[in-house]
């Protein structure tokens, strides 16, 4: 995809915001304290990226970053569906992070090179480095899980089966080329590129999960509009 229009800028912003919230749900529940902090760091990186873009979009639409994050309905979000799926187990979370990070590894440099907005370029250039680490973290974990025990291999395989139909909005020839070697190293076979995919969120259609997630994410801001601390 080529995120140059506001609509697709919103896609990137919402992807970061929604995935950030999903990752933040791991706080205090990750398998180790170190991984808890790692997922928190990644969630905060994504939140910062989302904020940077939502500020720009808010300025352009007479809203604010908070207005866009907390006072839109699910149908107004444009994140790829894969970002909003519930975390599942650790393998599912890390494979999803891998898929999205590989997509963003293409999105951010394109955005930095094509945007005529200096603020967007600033967000994108910073995000290139942050995303490189997310991608590295997710890749090493997927290889470790896939090439690990029978239990971890089985969990990653199940995650792959569940996530594959949701690749449609983020996949490209380059995306498949980047995904395949990681899966191979993780001793998994990449499913067919032309397998069935879910529809996209471009017209505001979402899975049932986004509404529940937003209800929690937005409840404080809606109960106390304009609250500061």
């Amino acid at each position, binding site marked *: 995809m080529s995120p140059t229009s506001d609509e697709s800028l919103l896609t990137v912003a919402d992807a970061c915001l929604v995935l950030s919230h999903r990752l933040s749900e791991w706080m205090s529940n990750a*398998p*180790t*304290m*170190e*991984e808890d*902090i*790692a997922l928190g*760091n990644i969630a905060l990186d994504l939140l910062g990226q989302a904020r940077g873009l939502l500020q720009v979009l808010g300025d352009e639409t007479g809203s604010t970053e908070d207005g866009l994050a907390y006072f839109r309905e699910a149908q107004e979000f444009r994140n790829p569906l894969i970002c909003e799926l519930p975390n599942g187990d650790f393998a599912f979370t890390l494979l999803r992070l891998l898929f999205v990070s590989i997509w963003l590894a293409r999105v951010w440099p394109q955005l930095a090179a094509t945007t005529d907005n200096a603020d967007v370029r600033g967000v994108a250039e910073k995000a290139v480095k942050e995303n490189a*680490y997310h991608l*590295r*973290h997710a890749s*090493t974990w997927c290889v*470790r899980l896939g090439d690990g025990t029978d239990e971890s291999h089985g969990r990653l395989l199940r995650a792959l089966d569940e996530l594959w139909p949701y690749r449609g909005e983020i996949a490209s020839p380059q995306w498949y080329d980047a995904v395949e070697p990681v899966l191979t190293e993780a001793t998994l076979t990449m499913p067919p590129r032309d397998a069935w995919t879910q529809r996209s969120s471009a017209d505001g259609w979402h899975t049932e999960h986004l509404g529940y997630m937003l209800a929690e994410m937005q409840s404080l801001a809606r109960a106390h509009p304009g609250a500061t601390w």
Partner: protein
Amino acid sequence: MSAQQREQWPLWEVFLRSRNGLHHAHVGSVHAVDAEMAVENARDVYTRRGEGVSIWVVPSAQIVASDPADKDELFEPALNKVYRHPTFYEIPDGVANI
């Protein structure tokens, strides 16, 4: 993963160099299954506020430590040798990191 297995993840000592020109200093430890994960965990746990430009990790089991019971014979003899402290000359203002 059971709590038992989780406890078996090896411990690694983490050393950070806060900026070029300084030496690596011990900052703490992390659990990790391999060296690669140890570096990533150290990055996530100890460099969140821009503390470092370089990370070393060492398996804690590889650290050889002095015995606390030996502290009198190891360290006390140095305490009364004041002439070993470089306090008898002025350090020029331009010399940093001392």
